[in-house]
């Protein structure tokens, strides 16, 4: 093994930094797209849940079916297009999914049991779901 001199060592460190940045730069976007899509879908679903409650509750299957169809499309696209995950992705993803799931359950239960038919709660739920998923996507983009 040839020992690098200080200049060569610095060049190697710069090269390692460049390669790391290049590997990171293309990573994460499929997950960011899924999080933003999930935010849009679930926020729109809470609004649809409110409107269905005012029109005809039997139609609740319709926004639910559309939401799950698009969720399936988003997940398939993420799996197909995912080429790399940034270091530490697993922990960030688990956190983002747990926070979204908690917000989702709270929104659905709140909109159908505790504050049923309340417009302010539908708006608040949509904002909450938008905020938590945008936060997750932002955190992944900045990591």
């Amino acid at each position, binding site marked *: *093994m040839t020992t690098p001199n200080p200049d060569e060592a610095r060049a190697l460190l710069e090269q390692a930094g460049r390669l790391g940045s290049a*590997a990171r730069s293309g990573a994460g976007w499929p997950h960011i797209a899924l999080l933003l899509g999930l935010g849009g879908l679930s926020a729109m679903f809470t609004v649809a849940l409110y409107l269905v409650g005012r029109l005809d509750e039997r139609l609740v299957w319709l926004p639910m079916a559309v939401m799950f169809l698009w969720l399936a499309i988003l997940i398939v696209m993420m799996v197909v297009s995912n080429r790399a995950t940034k270091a530490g992705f*697993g922990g960030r993803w688990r956190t983002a999914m747990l926070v979204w799931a908690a917000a989702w359950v709270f929104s659905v239960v709140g909109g159908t049991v505790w504050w049923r038919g309340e417009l302010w709660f539908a708006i608040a739920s949509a904002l909450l779901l938008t905020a938590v998923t945008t936060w997750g996507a932002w955190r992944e983009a900045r990591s």
Partner: protein
Amino acid sequence: MSAAEHPRHQLNDTLTHPVRFSLVAALAATDEIDFATVRDHLQVSDSVLSRQASALEEAGVVRIRKGYVGKRPRTWLALTPDGRTQWEAHLAALRAIAGA
């Protein structure tokens, strides 16, 4: 400074090879990356990357996972926890040499 204390003794022989060094540098920034993507980043051929990745796998530095996306085969590369530790130690030795 005595010869035994010089940071060059902390360099990892496995990681001094240019392609292996570049491969591990790319892997260190990710949890996992697919073969084709890292090949394009490193601008090497499939056979060169495959050979060096296998050598690193034998050394316990890299984990290679083969799978499918639909019907298409895809190979994923990742650093093992021990490989990450070795890489950090190698970088620390380079920093020490650069600062010497």
